[in-house]
């Protein structure tokens, strides 16, 4: 659905529901917030570009020495409380993406109907809560790293779905349990050479918070097809399923977090990371290990093409050391060093590697410095 039509539907829905309810004295109430990051990274690997995901067309160090593409963005967030039960949000993000632009995109735009403070249904463009930090991964200020670990987070390039979701939160003793369900969703993702479309998306996600511990488990399914932008040929619809698990322990002075995902489409892939850090006044030094497996082809599909095999083989691991410094109100500075190792049979997730160049088993270094802010 085109963004313009989408908004007309959204505003229409909001107006209908808003009219149907008695007005509160303080409502409607509008709030405006924003966030951003300015980050530069440099890689020692000259034969390819170190990019966070496939929507970023170029990076360091084949195309440029230093790149701002991975960790630079600015976003505005408009929220409207229309009645005590009906609210709407609009979040627009400008970040580097295909084809070579910072053109703003609508990340969320939805209307919420809250039955109680602990139960709602939303319609519109909605965050996908696949991982512990997937729905806030653009907001650098909310986490310790320069960006969430690449090897896991790029396994799911989709950050939102256009559709309907619902949430129900309840207390069990001292624990808070939150269930979210994607009831229906679709998504279109433009890459440099292809456009990936997802439909018939559904999922269920459960998060339990008990004391300093947060545990998250999610399962989602969608039908996905990829269209080749040059030939215009669209591949078959493939059922994708993702099972994700995450655990975080954060008593205040230190934290540990680990997440894992198993993706199934024509291949099966697993990815994980484990990270921990210690908070010393305004400084949080941390360390992360992350890796993904190569995809193993599942039975029941036609023999894969050479390109499918190349894509499925992509596997790498990284050890990262970094520090977050909360040097002023609502602003942080982060520095991170990554030692990346490509698998013995792939060029990992390096982009723009010239045809025929193999970097199998190569190791390289990446340094990244970021300032994150909220306003």
């Amino acid at each position: 659905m085109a963004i313009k039509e989408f908004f007309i539907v959204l505003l229409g829905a909001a107006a209908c529901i808003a009219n149907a309810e008695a007005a509160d004295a303080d409502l409607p109430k509008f709030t405006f917030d924003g966030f951003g990051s300015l980050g530069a990274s440099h890689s020692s690997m000259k034969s390819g570009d170190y990019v966070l995901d496939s929507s970023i067309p170029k990076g360091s160090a084949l195309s440029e020495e230093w790149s701002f593409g991975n960790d630079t963005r600015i976003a505005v967030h408009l929220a409207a409380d229309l009645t005590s039960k009906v609210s709407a949000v609009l979040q627009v993000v400008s970040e580097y993406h295909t084809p070579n632009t910072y053109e703003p995109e609508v990340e969320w735009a939805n209307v919420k109907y809250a039955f109680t403070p602990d139960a709602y249904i939303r319609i519109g463009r909605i965050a996908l809560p696949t991982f512990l930090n997937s729905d806030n991964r653009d907001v650098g200020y909310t986490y310790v790293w320069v960006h969430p670990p690449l090897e896991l987070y790029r396994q799911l390039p989709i950050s939102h779905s256009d559709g309907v979701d619902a949430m129900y939160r309840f207390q069990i003793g001292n624990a808070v349990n939150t269930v979210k369900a994607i009831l229906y969703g679709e998504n279109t993702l433009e890459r440099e050479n292809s456009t990936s479309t997802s439909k018939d998306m559904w999922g269920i996600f459960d998060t339990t918070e008990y004391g300093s511990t947060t545990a998250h488990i999610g399962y989602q399914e969608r039908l996905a097809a990829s269209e080749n932008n040059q030939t215009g040929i669209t591949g078959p619809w493939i059922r994708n399923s993702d099972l994700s698990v995450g655990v975080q322990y954060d008593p205040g002075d230190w934290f540990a977090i680990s997440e894992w995902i198993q993706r199934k489409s024509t291949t099966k892939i697993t990815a994980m990371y484990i990270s921990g850090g210690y908070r010393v006044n305004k400084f949080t030094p941390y360390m992360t290990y992350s890796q993904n497996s190569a995809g193993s082809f599942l039975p029941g599909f036609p023999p894969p093409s050479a390109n499918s095999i190349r894509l499925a083989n992509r596997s790498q691991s990284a050890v990262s050391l970094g520090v977050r410094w909360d040097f002023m109100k609502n602003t942080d500075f982060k520095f991170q060093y990554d030692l990346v190792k490509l698998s013995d049979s792939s060029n990992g997730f390096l982009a723009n590697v010239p045809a025929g160049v193999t970097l199998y088993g190569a190791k390289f270094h990446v340094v990244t410095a970021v300032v994150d802010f909220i306003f």
Partner: protein
Amino acid sequence: MISTLLLAVSIFASSAFADVVVIVSAKSTITHLTTEQTAKIFLGKASSFPDDRDAVPFDQAVGSAIRDEFYTKVAHKSSPQVSAYWAKVIFTGDGRPPEILESNAAVRKAVANNTHAIGYIEKSAVDKSVRVVLDP
């Protein structure tokens, strides 16, 4: 020498921290809350008191000593951690932080007048209009 140093440390510690207490209206039926129950209400993870009545929290100014002490003692979060927490909630559209009132007197007044309200103030600012439910 060591005892002088300890004395200096303890004086520093007591002056750096105000003495925060959590209050509800004197007309409220709530008599006691745990740090966990209080943290959940102020972080938006619980919308009601343990007796299921709606809870309306009032915060104090960002950067104030009383606010920093409250979140350190009750939620084990520093000021930047609380800001980062709310950024995550706001930018995923899941909620809004509590309303901020600018002084102990303003919080006390708002809490005294509303049996659903909960706030935190300096212990020395407590009067008969409110009841202390937690002294963390």
